[in-house]
């Protein structure tokens, strides 16, 4: 069985993103970038399946500027076998990314595309579902448990009021919830080894895929959550504030 894992290079999710002074976008220059945490979960799961000998090959793919190569190297240091880098200077939206992935799914013929349920930057939560539709494949979204058998995947999905267990007919697109696993840290020897693993680089422009922007970002603004809070010294004081000042109880 072969798994394709798309990974995205994003602003590190521990960093507070800053809005550019002209409000045109988010400042990414000089900011620490990392693999989207949801994608790390997907890479980890694919590697575990390989270690259990259920999967024979894990291919990682990233689309973006040349530095996305670092993200592929991280995935390979975690245990992925090889990488595909699709270079593009433009910010791409989920529909375009799904179309590019569709191209490589057709080429690579994986049994499963395993990917994060959303990217921590655009929070769109759409690429996997769009890809599944384009391929006419089953989809398993927000998956917290994955068991593979011949031609089938049994998944546990996180839903509004609990969990749902489904059986998917393979091939399928599966998107991961953070609860699926705890991603490993790549060891130094594995980081060194990953440097020798192959990356195939393709320019998006050479693929002839329509990636015209459908959803234009007009402006961005900070959404402040800071409040002029007061620290009270006792439960009595808190009760007084909630009853007489805030009037919520």
């Amino acid at each position, binding site marked *: 069985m072969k798994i394709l894992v798309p990974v995205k290079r994003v*602003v590190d999710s521990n960093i*507070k*993103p800053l809005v550019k002074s002209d409000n045109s976008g*988010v400042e990414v220059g000089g900011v620490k970038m990392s693999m989207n945490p949801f994608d790390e979960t997907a890479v980890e799961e694919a590697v575990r399946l390989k270690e259990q000998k259920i999967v024979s090959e894990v291919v990682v793919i990233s689309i973006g500027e040349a530095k996305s190569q670092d993200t592929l190297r991280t995935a390979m240091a975690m245990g992925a076998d090889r990488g595909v880098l699709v270079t593009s200077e433009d910010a791409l939206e*989920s*529909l375009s990314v*799904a179309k590019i992935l569709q191209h490589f799914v057709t080429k690579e013929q994986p049994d499963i595309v395993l990917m994060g349920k*959303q990217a921590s*930057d655009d*929070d769109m*939560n*759409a690429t996997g*579902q*769009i890809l599944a*539709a384009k391929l006419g*494949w*089953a*989809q398993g*979204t*927000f998956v917290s448990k994955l068991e593979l058998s011949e031609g089938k995947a*049994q998944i546990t*999905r*996180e*839903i*509004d*009021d*609990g*969990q*749902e*267990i489904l*059986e*998917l*007919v393979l091939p*399928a697109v599966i998107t991961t919830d*953070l*609860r699926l696993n705890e991603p490993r840290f790549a060891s130094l020897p594995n980081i060194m080894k990953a440097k020798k693993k192959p990356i195939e680089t393709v320019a998006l422009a050479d693929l002839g895929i329509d990636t015209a*922007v*459908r*959803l*234009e*970002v*007009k402006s*961005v*603004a*900070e*959404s402040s*959550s*800071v*409040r*002029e*809070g007061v*620290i*009270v010294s006792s*439960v009595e004081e*808190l*009760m007084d504030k*909630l009853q007489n000042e*805030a009037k*919520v*109880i």
Partner: protein
Amino acid sequence: MAVLVLLSYEKGDKIRPISRSAIAAATQLDTEVHALLVGENLEILSQKASQLNGVQKLLVAEHSAYAHMPAEPVANLIASIAESYEFIIAPANAEGKDILPRLAGLLDVQPISDVVEIIDTSTFVRPIYAGSILATVASKDAKKLLSVRGTTFEAVAETGGSAVVEKIENLPLSEKQLSIFKELKLSQSDRPELEGARVVVSGGRGMQSAENFVLLEKIADQLEGAIGASRAAVDAGFVSNDFQVGQTGKIVAPELYIAVAISGAIQHLAGMKDSKIVVSINKDPEAPMFKVSDYGIVGDLFEILPQLEAALKAR
């Protein structure tokens, strides 16, 4: 051209409040609002849905293949009637987020997730970066597919409407079933639904154990509130995942949010920052949660919570 709203409902024939928020968003588009009910055994739900305020027409698609709303056939169904609609709206919950982007793939449209504000018929506001930034986006697609956040659109009334009910007859069902439903594991709770609760009492890693959540339940009992949790508390196994508030969990905006032993990571704030009043109880005076709280108490939760419970009881 009209707007179609996909309805989401719970077991026990209850239309979710977030569906009513989705209708509220749809009414802002100044066009006819149609609601779509998909599933099996929809008699009671149809009756309820036809009374939702603001809905002019209710479409009902009933078939055993639609039980538990599987994304593949439901997206195909909506695609088959999409021609009549300029806008298709789904609630930004587990179902809407599963189905709407698949529909977008079928229709070759870029979906717009988690809309919190409708500026005009092609311009919308949505949060990015765990809600720390709001982006204003303009869609160039002829058809707009939106999922809407429940907390920012005030739900329409459950009654007052009188929609024309129309059964969809030509269901585009294929023989090949891509996903097969196996089992539903619902979390049992007598408390109000987290997303619609007036009061939410949430615990973090500092609660130390699942047993200690009883302390929060006692507070919630006094306030008829729901229980929430940070991801750290869920990961530590204190409560199940559907209690999680945050970027990857539920988005809540209650009148009162009480955060107990929650440090205040941006991923958590993403889920509760629009609460009206936020109270934080934490022993660490440097906890970032205090900066986003209206009232804070620095101290040991094991001392404070019983005191708070007693004070609430004595009200």
